[in-house]
């Protein structure tokens, strides 16, 4: 028995992981039930920063992620878009990742077009698209956005877009929201936008789980709020849905993070059990070795 577990075929572990994710997805899909969520201070801060803005104020949304991290970051990007649209803010979308532009298009198609049909492109929201250059882009647009953005993502001249009128740099934004999957991302926005202009630029964001520990040193001065991975997104989502309940039948797409907490819970418990099991085997082995 001991030998069997010691040399356990890793395909059994793969199967357990598959079941630990698939079963909760199925159950949550069937029952529509999610775990109750309590928002912790960092998610509450993100929510409060957006709530503090008045309708018509300007928000820059930088979606720096791609399909690889969409599972983790997509729900928070959707929640940001929904929250800002519900507040009647002016949304300026941009991306430092090549595929970020598609992530922006997805969110516009998912949130703004079906649920906020009164919002007009160019007047209430604009997609500035992707620009190559990583932190180099940030360094320029903090002082002169038109050096880089001569057109929006659709090829329309920036001078012909009503909501770009009078915008010289991103210092004129009332808040910046960043969804970050790595480099370039929140760290670069902190270093090249917030740090040189701490009074003018205010940043909150969301990031992947592996990135979160690296961003904690910037909290709270340079980064007042942070959604750390799907858990942070779930907390934030619960606050947004409570304040702005979606129309009937549209709740599911605004509860993606909360729905994903089920598979996350079972997968994390499985990980803990696997570590415990691995250590029991290790100690038995060591004891036998010592005896021999």
């Amino acid at each position, binding site marked *: 028995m001991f030998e069997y577990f010691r040399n356990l075929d*890793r395909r059994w*572990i*793969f199967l*357990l*992981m*598959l079941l630990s*994710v698939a079963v909760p997805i199925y159950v949550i899909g069937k029952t529509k039930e999610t*775990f*109750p*969520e*309590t928002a*912790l201070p960092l998610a509450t801060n993100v929510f409060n920063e957006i709530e503090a803005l008045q309708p018509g104020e300007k928000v820059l949304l930088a979606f720096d992620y*791609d*399909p*690889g*991290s*969409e*599972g983790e970051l997509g729900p928070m990007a959707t929640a940001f878009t929904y929250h800002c649209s519900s507040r009647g803010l002016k949304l300026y979308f941009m991306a430092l990742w090549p595929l970020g*532009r*598609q992530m922006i*298009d997805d969110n516009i198609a998912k949130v703004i077009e079906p649920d906020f049909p009164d919002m007009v492109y160019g007047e209430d929201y604009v997609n500035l698209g992707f620009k*190559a*250059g*990583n932190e*180099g*882009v940030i*360094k*320029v647009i903090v*002082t002169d956005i038109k*050096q*880089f953005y001569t057109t929006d993502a*659709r*090829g*329309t001249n920036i001078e012909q877009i009503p909501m770009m009128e009078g915008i010289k740099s991103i210092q004129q934004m009332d808040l910046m929201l960043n969804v970050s999957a790595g480099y370039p991302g929140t760290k670069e926005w902190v270093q090249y936008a917030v740090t*040189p202009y701490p009074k003018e630029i205010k940043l909150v964001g969301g990031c992947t*789980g592996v990135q*979160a*520990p*690296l961003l*904690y*040193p910037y*909290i709270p001065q340079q980064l007042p709020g942070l959604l*750390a*991975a799907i*858990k942070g997104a779930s907390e934030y989502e619960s606050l947004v849905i409570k304040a702005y309940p979606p129309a009937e039948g549209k709740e599911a797409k605004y509860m993606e993070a909360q729905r994903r*907490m089920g598979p*996350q*819970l079972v*997968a*994390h*418990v*499985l*990980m*803990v059990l*696997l*570590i415990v*099991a*691995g*250590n029991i085997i*290790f100690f038995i082995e060591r004891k036998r070795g010592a005896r021999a």
Partner: protein
Amino acid sequence: MKRTIPLLLASIAGFIMIVAYFSPHTESWGEEVAVWFNILAAVAFILGGGNLLKIHLRKVSDRNSGWMYSVITVVSFLVMLFLGLWKFGVNPNPQFPDYGHWAGEYNDSTSPFYWLYEYTFKPLQATIFAMLAFYVASAAFRAFRAKNFEALLLLATAFVVLLGRTAAGVFLTDFIPADGPFAALRLEEMTQYLMNIFNTAGNRAIMIGIALGTASVSLKILLGVDRSYIGSGDD
């Protein structure tokens, strides 16, 4: 000349960026350098594409191990490039009707470029990322051992954070009153404490170290002491 000019360019650009940061009068110089940097970054995409073709075509021609994967890479690259640049199936832009599909959006939902992105690239990339969960689970079983005190500390921290980041954390320690004297022992509170105090302190120390190292290396590069970034000069 081949080495001196790049050295000079790097040095001048670097010093301009430093001066621009400290003086508002020279701020526009820094912007100019940053714009040049971004033009170079865009050109790097072409260089990257060329390099990808060079490496993989050589692998195919030499019939190195795994050359079939190189064929797939090259074909995928060329197909996406071709469909994206030629804008096949893109609807014309109503603003510029005279230019036909050329003025349309390259990723229009009617184009094969969009289909390939939406139904091939996107699911494949998400799948590769999702597969990490399986390998991490396997590694957790085989490698995460409490071999010594430090490893034990790491294990305990991992358990607290793993459970604290889920609803299990709340359920398991829900019996501890949230406003009582032992509230700090609730798993979600312990997770916060670990992240805010220990993690922040450790990361700040590392960041300060990295920043000092970066400043020192940057200065060596700007002064031309460290020339390793322009290669050996042999080729």
